């Protein structure tokens, strides 16, 4: 490969890394905002920090397996430690997890459209519209390039929002530190137990030059928790726990903001959700056919159709169902990590 090809490949890997980090940030933020925050209010930020630990622990264990097997990606490590079955299991698990994440994100986005912003149109028509727009960008590198291209714009908008929101911050809003007490914190920790599972996704990509992949996950994870911390600084606990309903929770960051800031935040929120849905759908497609050399052309359409059809059901019932599934998302990855590393240690190649 000549230098130009290497540079192009490295650029594509970086773009893919940006998309994965964005997916990480959106997934973690969505779980904290919609599952953890309504249960524990002011203590959500530090409860979310605790909830990051299982995801990072599993990712660290899987990274250790990769180190033991001298593998560049997680799929290679699974193949080296467990065999082909391991690689299939990993792909299957990730495809299911990404599909659940995509359904969660599209449900959140459509609910934000219909019940939050008050857009005219049924959930199904809006889901169809989202699906059609996604079809334009579900090209193999299209989304990643889009996310990479927009990263500084999104970062600048987020910083601007943070600075403006800081003007309304009151230190006493972080108190009482334990919110409604230990029971509420435990319930919130249970709901958010798996929130950091997308960190593992960073290990599935080809490494780009520069910083380590797990170190790259720290920024999106902490940015998500930081955003929640900022929100708890601007709204007191007694109001945080009053919020019920998905739309109200998603609108919470903009609820008391000036109109211009509200528009900017909602635009940013929709854009990031949109990119995250696209990323989840694309990665789920890739994972489904990881063993095959070529992904069938029709598969992205099937995935999008499935996402579209998920919105045909009652949104609140679907959200409740997802709430029952989400605390267990880390389980298959944890299981694979626990099986793979002793095997990797056993088959370790001596230098």
């Amino acid at each position: 490969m000549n230098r130009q090809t290497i540079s192009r490949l490295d650029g594509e890997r970086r773009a893919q890394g940006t998309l994965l980090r964005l997916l990480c940030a959106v997934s973690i933020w969505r779980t904290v905002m919609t599952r953890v925050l309504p249960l524990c209010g002011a203590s959500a930020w530090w409860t979310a920090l605790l909830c990051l630990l299982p995801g990072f622990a599993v990712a660290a264990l899987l990274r250790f397996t990769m180190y033991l097997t001298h593998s560049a990606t997680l799929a290679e490590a699974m193949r080296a430690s467990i065999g082909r079955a391991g690689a299939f299991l990993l792909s299957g698990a990730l495809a299911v997890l990404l599909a659940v994440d995509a359904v969660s994100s599209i449900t959140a986005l459509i609910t934000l459209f219909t019940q939050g912003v008050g857009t005219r149109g049924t959930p199904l028509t809006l889901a169809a519209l989202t699906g059609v727009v996604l079809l334009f960008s579900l090209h193999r590198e299209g989304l990643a390039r889009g996310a990479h291209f927009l990263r500084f714009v999104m970062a600048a908008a987020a910083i601007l929002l943070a600075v403006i929101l800081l003007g309304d911050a009151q230190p006493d809003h972080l108190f009482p530190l334990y919110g409604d007490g230990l029971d509420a914190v435990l319930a919130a920790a249970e709901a958010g137990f798996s929130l950091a599972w997308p960190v593992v996704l960073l290990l599935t990509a080809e490494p780009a030059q520069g910083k380590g992949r797990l170190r790259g996950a720290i920024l999106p994870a902490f940015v998500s928790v930081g955003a929640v911390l900022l929100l708890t600084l601007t709204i007191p606990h007694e109001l945080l726990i009053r919020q019920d309903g998905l739309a109200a929770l998603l609108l919470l960051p903009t609820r008391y903001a000036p109109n211009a800031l509200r528009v900017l935040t909602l635009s940013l929120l929709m854009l990031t959700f949109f990119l995250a849905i696209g990323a989840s759908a694309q990665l789920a497609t890739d994972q489904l056919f990881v063993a095959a050399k070529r992904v069938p052309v029709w598969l992205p359409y099937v995935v999008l159709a499935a996402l579209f059809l998920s919105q045909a059901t009652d949104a609140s019932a679907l959200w409740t169902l997802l709430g029952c599934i989400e605390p267990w998302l880390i389980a298959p990855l944890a299981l694979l990590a626990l099986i793979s590393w002793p095997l990797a240690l056993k088959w370790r190649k001596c230098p």
Partner: protein
Amino acid sequence: MKKLLILLMLLTCTSCSALPAEERAFAVALCVEREGTLWRVHGRIPTYKTGGGYTTVTGEGDSLSAALADMDASAPMHLHLSQLRLLVLEEGLGADMSAVLHELSDRVDVRPHCAVAVTDVPAKELMDALKPATGARLSKTIDVLLDTRIEQGAVLPATLADVIRMGERQSPVLIALTLTDGAIDLSGGYGMADSALPLTARETTLLSLLRGDAKTLRLSLSGGTAEVRDARAKIRLSQGMQSASIELTMTVTASAFTADGLEEVLAGELLTLLERLSAAGCDVLGLGRKAILRTANMAEWHGLEWTARLRQISWTVSVGVSGPA
């Protein structure tokens, strides 16, 4: 890049469809009153006729939401509250004011930065008096009037967002709205406690001084006036939460008093005001924000019975002035 642009255009088009502005009537002011069990709301909306002008739409119902729905039905177009500048509550709502504010803030379309005022003037009369003083826009008139009165210390800033976000930690002071010679006037306030506690313009000026809401203030005190700037107040709550102290420092630019005289008079008036507010359970300076820092969870906070403690609290006020007296 082309695909990205198409994507952004499509997203922009979908978001635009949410706000068909020409199909909505944007209320500039909203007044809520209750007569027995009957709720009544009045909205002031532009007529959209050539030459401008405003009209009042009214709705009634057995609940606030029913009254709002009725008002929406009686409006010529879909009524929208996203441009609301002034929310007026009838004085008779008393302890229900807080519930009304929460209910309105829960509505997505209500502008959270509208000013919240309390009035004893009949709502219909008040609404008809809401006219642009200069130019053609009522919203601008209200904005300018509010800014001016806040700068003068005649009223304290009280937006719906601010009031709601005080939660259980501070008592808001709502703006007092009256009619003077047929025109609206903002002067004084209502401290929100168990009931609305009326405050004079002189008292709101003193509170403005303590809260630092205005850069410069003209104080009317017993025995003369004083013009001050750069006021800073340090508020402390004792460990046992039985006493509170205020250290106020400021620069005097003009005064009818000597420095010592001003300190003495001001400290006396502040002490009288703070004791009156505390006795009514009205925590306008947010001592509750300091008290909640000492609790681990909400059960402990509620166990404190803060309002009851506040009624018993003893105040110490010290004033330090600098500059020409």
